[in-house]
């Protein structure tokens, strides 16, 4: 079975579930609406997705630490499928965002000038031809134009404390909606084309968002990659193939669960010569098994600097109900009851001490595992 994997960079869950084309696809897919990213920025997020392992172990836990990826110890998705004889190709925004190992071709697009729809349709056609010749392929496509808009109109224009930005939430929402609408059009065209050429007969489609994006929820974060709040931590993933059930699952899962899920669908066993995968396949959850997944995340608050820090300085642990945040940079803690307080506004760290102890110990367990 071939693999077409699309990352919708910076796609927010609240837009995904309501968008025209996205929701049409969700209806047919195995969709996980609450997929907690390991890191709310692409570089660390995608290294975790591709290895099924948190950055605490892979070495990639910050914007800067791509160089530390333990590629000799962590077997990544393209390497798994490459070992099965797949032709592998990645079209990405930047060379830092993924570990390139295992890709036959690792191509960087020009996010400012390239027409990604046309470019990606051509790539799909190219690999459809290989498919007709009986060759298996893994095509990875990065839709980067939400990032492009945010970079041009938010990152370059404002800082994390710009009054103009945080006082105009409606304007920010509107701008994000424009970017998202274009993203949804892109997805619609890609899916329509794949349907026309019957690609999904023998191809697994994976569509994920790597992290969300702020529209001005919290002062101090104009976009993403600063805090560990839900508007950036919640991403989504869907798996589409005729053999898979069409289900919408709201239970929390983790981005590190994506790799083992793909491996299970493709019938590829984990390679015991490498570091064990921390994520777990989502297939048992789709079959009704009750398997809670506690999610760990890390981010890097640049504080007064104009550069992200070299190491993460905010950690969080999340369950379906609770979020515990440890701010390493100022040694403070936060605890939120997400059911009543999805906006994470009421810090319960001093009032629900028993839960705080439990969540702290969960974080320690993950950090020391």
């Amino acid at each position: 079975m071939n693999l077409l994997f699309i990352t919708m960079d910076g796609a927010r869950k609240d837009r995904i579930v309501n968008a025209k084309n996205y929701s049409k696809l969700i209806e047919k897919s195995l969709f996980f609406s609450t997929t907690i990213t390991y890191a709310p920025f692409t570089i660390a997020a995608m290294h975790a997705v591709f290895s099924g392992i948190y950055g605490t172990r892979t070495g990639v836990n910050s914007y800067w630490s791509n160089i530390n990826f333990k590629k000799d110890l962590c077997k990544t998705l393209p390497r798994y499928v490459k070992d099965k004889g797949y032709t592998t190709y990645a079209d990405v925004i930047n060379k830092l965002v993924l570990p390139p190992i295992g890709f036959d071709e690792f191509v960087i697009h020009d996010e400012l000038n390239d027409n990604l729809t046309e470019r990606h349709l051509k790539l799909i056609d190219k690999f459809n031809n290989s498919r007709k010749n009986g060759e298996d392929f893994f095509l990875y496509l990065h839709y980067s134009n939400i990032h492009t808009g945010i970079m041009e109109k938010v990152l370059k224009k404002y800082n994390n404390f710009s009054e103009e930005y945080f006082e105009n939430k409606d304007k920010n929402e509107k701008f994000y909606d424009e970017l998202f609408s274009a993203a949804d059009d892109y997805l619609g065209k890609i899916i329509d084309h794949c349907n026309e050429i019957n690609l999904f007969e023998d191809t697994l489609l994976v569509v994920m968002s790597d992290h969300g994006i702020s529209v001005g929820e919290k002062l101090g974060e104009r976009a993403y990659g600063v805090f560990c709040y839900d508007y950036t931590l919640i991403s989504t993933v869907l798996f589409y193939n005729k053999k898979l059930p069409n289900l919408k699952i709201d239970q929390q899962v983790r981005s590190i669960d994506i790799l083992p899920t793909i491996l299970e669908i493709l019938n590829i066993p984990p390679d015991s010569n490498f570091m064990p995968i921390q994520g777990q396949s989502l297939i048992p959850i789709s079959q009704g098994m009750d398997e809670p997944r506690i999610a760990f995340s890390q981010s890097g608050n640049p504080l007064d600097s104009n550069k992200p820090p070299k190491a993460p300085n905010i950690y969080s642990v999340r369950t379906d109900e609770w979020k515990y945040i440890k701010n390493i940079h100022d040694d403070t803690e936060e605890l939120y009851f997400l059911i009543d307080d999805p906006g994470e506004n009421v810090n319960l760290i001093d009032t629900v001490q028993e839960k705080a102890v439990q969540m702290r110990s969960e974080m320690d367990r993950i950090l020391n595992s």
Partner: protein
Amino acid sequence: MKPNVLFLIIDSLRADKFPQKNQNNSSPNISSLVQNGTLFSNTISSANATILSWSSLFTSKFPFKTGIRSSRFNKLDSNIETSFDVLKNNNYRLYGYLPKLSETVGLFPKFDNDDYLYDFYIGLSNGLGEEIIKKIDSNLSTPWFFLVHSMDLHQPINVSKKFDITKFGMSSYERKVSEIDFWIGKIIKKIDLKNTILIITGDHGDYIKSTNIANKELDFNPDHNKEVIRSKISKHAPKFLKPLKDKVFFSLEKQAQTRKSKMLHDLDLRDYEKRAIIAGKADKDHFLFDELIKVPLLIVSPQITKNLLINQQIRTVDIFPTLFDLLGLKFQSDIDGVNLKPLINSESMQEQPAYIESNPLVLTESNDVIGIRTSAYKYFRDKNQPSKRIHLFNLETDPYEETNLSSESELIKKFEGILISLLGDYSEKISQNTYESDEIEQELRKLGYV
């Protein structure tokens, strides 16, 4: 008064091609120096290429502890003490001539002479030799440490007309050694050897791409002039052509290998001769055969035994601890090298296993190996996966490393154990890194994060 030091590194100089004391015809100067010094004939470099070899030689640490992983990726870890630090702290003045490649690794200090960097293709006979002599003549402040790294023997070899005759050897490699000998003779004439320690060594070996069949020399060496032109065109090509340029390079290398394989098919050559001729610059599979890592080490000093040949295995990490002992200096940090004084004094000394590592390619990902060499065995395997590309050779019965004993599981277990104990906590950090931090910052800027 502290002695001066002239430290000559001849790039790609193999131990088996280093002139011996009776080679007065072809290499009279080195031959005479060998009679006046101590020659170690089994010196194992930590790596098969310059960058990792330097990283280890000048820190007396195994390369994986230095931060340097290959030419474009990572610089020396700023916390690592180098031999230059020790020399500077002891008031040595540092002079040198190094190829420009040395700029990339952050290992070398600022030398007292501003003109210490030279272009890759500049050799002793086309300018470098005269420059060195001029510098030595210029009244250097004492005590001095003068480092020269000559690229003369590096492929493509360009032998001057005067030396390109049979008297100086059959291959261009041997003839070039004689040409280097000529320049060493000119340089040491300018040195007061009563108050100077002279060291001659190589950073690594190389395959010799020529062979003699029925008294006829078959030369498969790349043509020097063509290589220079190719390199210049490549250097000045616009950046956007780089992917195409790299593709062309790998394709040409592959074509050359296929051509050579066909030519060798009917020739009666041994495996080690064939592998040398076929080996190409773009080979992704790297090896650590002796011809790539065994170098000579000659020490000439009034304090040292004359006309002594030591065959016991030593390592390039041992060079500076030994030199520093002669100078009364010491590294302040922990090092992997040992002082070879007992051997020089003809006393017994336990052999140390040599850690060896292949240097990654720059343009593409290579399959690199790490391993251990003792005087009896050589063991190396895939850098990332211990069970892959295993090579084990019995050096006593198979000195040309033609019979791989990879099924000898007990021996492999033993040497893997030694390797792991040398790697220690670094075993997880051994893999090649991808980009250096300046490059990352540039990429993050493109993404709007910096």
